[in-house]
């Protein structure tokens, strides 16, 4: 069991996402910052399917019944057990120790992975919470979460992964609706800085900057993916994140690569993002 002592503001269980119900209009959900989430799981020797906790708002404090590896990741996140321990590092936590997840002001989403993973019952094939549709719920202080079987021991501790630089430089792939934008608009899109609007959340990051409106003409609603940069008629782009609606009716100027999606999600209101074309061959 994991005993949640303090749950933060809107922390949830997430896994790699709910991919089997897109056709029912149920979004994938999963972590807002996939790179940080995947790193946290890898650090505690969990597989791709393991569930971990996405922490929104601090403090997040917990205790464990049995010894586990724990890793905390995020833009600027670490943990303390008596003393400060670094993020992006696996830590061996003993039964009963109080673990506090901490973060700098710039972390919107921190991830806490434990060896064995969170073992809450899956809903529609996934443990990922999707709060707008009442799938899963925000964690509450005092609750207990079941954990999976942990096979990793202390010997796996002190491994580290390098945190990505949350530098606002976002790599994208053209399309799928690039031809709906005039060349000078595309030049403006790739040549300008865009500010993150305060209404951004797990559904999407809204941007303010020079308008990059598509040409006129109707676009019938079509399926969309996390990372899609939709541009409504007003010309202010929206980068879709984990909780995005499954379909959208706005042209998509470009799509953020998965490795940089977390940089978009973690950006705070007022910070700027710039977009760069990602050349596939260098992947």
């Amino acid at each position: 069991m994991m005993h949640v002592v303090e749950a933060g503001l809107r922390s949830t269980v997430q896994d790699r996402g709910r991919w089997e119900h897109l056709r029912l209009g149920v979004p994938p959900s999963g972590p807002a910052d996939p790179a940080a989430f995947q790193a946290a799981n890898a650090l505690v020797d969990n597989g791709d399917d393991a569930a971990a906790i996405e922490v929104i708002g601090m403090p997040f404090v917990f205790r464990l019944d049995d010894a586990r590896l724990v890793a905390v990741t995020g833009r600027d996140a670490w943990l303390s057990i008596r003393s400060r321990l670094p993020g992006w590092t696996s830590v061996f936590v003993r039964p009963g120790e109080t673990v506090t997840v901490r973060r700098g002001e710039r972390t919107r989403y921190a991830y806490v992975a434990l060896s064995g993973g969170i073992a809450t019952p899956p809903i529609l094939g996934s443990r990922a919470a999707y709060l707008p549709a009442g799938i899963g719920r925000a964690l509450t202080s005092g609750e207990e979460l079941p954990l999976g079987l942990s096979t990793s021991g202390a010997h796996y501790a002190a491994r580290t992964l390098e945190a990505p630089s949350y530098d606002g430089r976002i790599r994208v792939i053209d399309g799928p609706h690039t031809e709906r934008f005039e060349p000078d608009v595309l030049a403006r899109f790739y040549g300008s800085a865009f500010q993150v609007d305060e209404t951004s959340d797990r559904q999407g990051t809204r941007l303010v900057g020079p308008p990059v409106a598509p040409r006129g003409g109707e676009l019938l609603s079509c399926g969309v993916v996390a990372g899609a940069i939709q541009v409504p008629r007003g010309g202010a782009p929206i980068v879709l994140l984990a909780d995005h609606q499954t379909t959208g009716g706005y042209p998509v100027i470009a799509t953020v690569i998965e490795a940089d999606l977390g940089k978009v999600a973690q950006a705070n209101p007022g910070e700027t993002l710039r977009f760069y074309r990602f050349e596939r061959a260098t992947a």
Partner: protein
Amino acid sequence: MAVGPRIAAFGEQALMVELGDVFDETMVARARAIADAWERLGHGPALPAYTSVVLHFDARRKSLETAEHDASDVIARAAPAVSTGTARLIEIPTVYDGEDLTDTAARSGMSVEELIRLHAGRDYTAYFLGFLSAFAYLGRIDPRIVAPRLERPRTRVPAGTVAIADGQTGVYPLTSPGGWRLIGRTDVVIFDPSAADPARIHAGDRVRFVRR
């Protein structure tokens, strides 16, 4: 002159297949058939809409080029199921008392009674689900009903609201913001994540609104 389907990368892990710019029931059925075939062959999740399909693939195991090849193959072979008239019929008992009912009737140059009679008087096809979990786009409504989207969407539309816009109708499965015109409400639970089949209406179903 019809242009063949267009396949484009949609990020690193998905393709966008566009079948055309104007939709009709044949196009919607074709998009759905492509999605069915893609999933049946185990390539990954697929998401059909009016005239397009998003095809997800596992980029760790498959290159973009291979995925595009698979997509061409599926598009060439997938044939929409021949309509046999055996589609499921879903009835939605509806109380017609929506906030926009009077205004929409006036805008359409008809009485409220007439609008209700036209809305409840035909069967609709569920084209696809999107926007909200289990929200089915149902069409088409009688062309005499004039119902453009609201210029200022409401910040809160209650779950179970029956609404119309742009030639289509639907039922809000969840309380959410919304820009469609509200004409009625139903007690039918449209989305239940705890059920084995969480969506009351599936793509391809026939749907009828029954006045209560």
